[in-house]
């Protein structure tokens, strides 16, 4: 049981922090419903609406007069493809490193993790050359194609996920697998029927992490994609809603809120399993 004093301390700590951390989003929400006249009136109290606000015209501008929805769709496509590739490559590798290989597995795991540290600003100079000269399906190169991102993003999601999953697999009691093997199950069968089902929290952690790394990328998307209809939200919003000196502030704020809220709900919903995934593995 916790005392009411402890409860009060919790609220006193969490209240102000939640306020500060979430304030930018409250401010985005407020701004996204304002009219031009209201936004740029210096004598206005910015916390109130006036001059025709609130209005939904900024949202209709975003949906109908920009390619925002295409960017959202592109981001989802790239995210799903990258997560799939990451799982296919990282799950077997992590399992093998954790269980099937001895001492060198550990060192190799650390080696793979270290590749995650190579900064994208270093890699993307040569990569952009490769991308623009890599002939594929009749095209001269992958430049301006979503596939360039699908190809390159796993270069940071795979090392990270392999490392995370390695720790996770190590935390599964060996006896479980041994029991299955004694019962005559093959190694692969043990893997699919025993190991993977128990590893779901770890795999979920990796899915969430990979997806968040994808939506957070800016450098690669900026360098590889220049055509409007192939952009993802991370660069589309920045490059097309800021035109020279003109900032479409209300639309920019709306564009930020729309993916952030569902993502935060999703993370919050899975947070407990996510935490189980982290404690289960990464640190053992």
């Amino acid at each position: 049981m916790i005392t009411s004093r402890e409860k009060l301390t919790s609220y006193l700590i969490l209240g102000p922090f939640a306020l500060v951390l979430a304030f930018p989003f409250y401010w985005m929400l407020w701004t996204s419903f304002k009219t031009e006249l209201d936004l740029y009136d210096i004598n206005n109290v910015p916390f109130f609406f006036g001059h025709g606000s609130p209005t939904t015209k900024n949202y209709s501008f975003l949906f109908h007069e920009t390619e925002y929805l295409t960017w959202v769709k592109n981001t989802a496509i790239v995210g799903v493809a990258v997560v799939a590739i990451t799982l296919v490559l990282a799950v077997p590798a992590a399992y093998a490193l954790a269980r099937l290989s001895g001492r060198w597995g550990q060192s190799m795991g650390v080696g793979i993790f270290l590749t995650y540290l190579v900064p994208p600003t270093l890699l993307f100079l040569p990569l952009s050359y490769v991308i623009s000269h890599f002939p594929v399906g009749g095209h001269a190169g992958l430049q301006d194609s979503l596939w360039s991102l699908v190809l390159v993003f796993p270069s940071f999601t795979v090392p990270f996920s392999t490392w995370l999953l390695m720790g996770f697999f190590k935390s599964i009691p060996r006896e479980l697998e041994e029991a299955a093997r004694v019962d005559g199950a093959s190694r692969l069968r043990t893997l699919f029927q025993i190991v993977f089902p128990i590893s779901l929290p770890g795999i979920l952690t990796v899915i969430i992490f990979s997806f968040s790394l994808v939506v957070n990328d800016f450098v690669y998307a900026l360098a590889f994609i220049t055509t409007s209809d192939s952009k993802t939200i991370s660069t589309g919003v920045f490059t097309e809603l800021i035109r020279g000196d003109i900032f479409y502030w209300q639309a920019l704020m709306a564009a930020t809120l729309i993916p952030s809220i569902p993502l935060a709900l999703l993370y919050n919903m899975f947070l407990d399993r996510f935490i189980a995934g982290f404690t289960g593995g990464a640190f053992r």
Partner: protein
Amino acid sequence: MATVAARGRTRRRRRNLLESRRFLATALIAPAVLFILVLVGGPLLLAMYLSLTDAVGGTLGGEWVGFDNFVNAWHDPNFRRALRNTLLFTIVSQAVVLLCAGLIAHALMRPIRGRWLLRFLIILPWAAPVPLSTIGWLWIYDSLFSVVNWTAKQLHLVDQFNPPQWLGDPTLALGAVISVHAWRIIPFAVVIFLAGLASIPSEVEDAAKVDGAVGLKKFWYVTLPLQLPIATVALLFGIVFTATDMTVVYILTQGGPFNSTQMLTSWAFFTGIRGGSLGEGAAVSLYLLPLLVVVAVLMLRFARKVEVT
């Protein structure tokens, strides 16, 4: 008949192969390793080669110049400032992150009403894509319509006619960049700390209670030592996320005013891509790598050592 027997034999052999530990391990690891070698190893070597040439934008060829790029970069005051800023941003923001996240995680462990909502609000900055949420800060720090300045003016904390230019003043801009980095990494550290707190067995809590350890004493002698490995991991990722990130600086200040907020990553981008000196850009980027590797190896080793004891 003979063919059936032969087929059976191959199937058995294939099965035996899959049962062999060494073969299976290699088969499972190979795809990931090959992928990493091609997409990280290859470009990394190419970047190292570029850093030793005078290659310019558009081509990958250039005259061999040895370590000239590294020497030139080192003597450039902008590079020095970028190096200093990278360290400054990383250290200050991570200090803030560890302190705040530790407090928040402890408070969040308690089963209180409205915990779900509080957790949602706290996690928001991490869930929002950085390239977008930084634009939100651009608006908050706006030169004319900054909500921070409006509030400060009402409270008579700042000059009514000459309020602080958060992104226009070199010193304030440093603070602005640090604030955004700390803001976006705090929720991540909170999650990792929660994971760490959840892994402390309840017997430890009970034993501490029996021994009369409460409040600060319990925190100092029981919770903190158990939290150290996980705090190290949170710190390691915080450092990597901050030091290798270019997005925040690129969107918030473009390295300005007068290159006062450049980091190594953004300076490499501006030199290599905007300025077209691929070779020198690669050299600037490469300065970051040994730093990161040393930090990572030290911290991974430390995390393991603490766990053993």
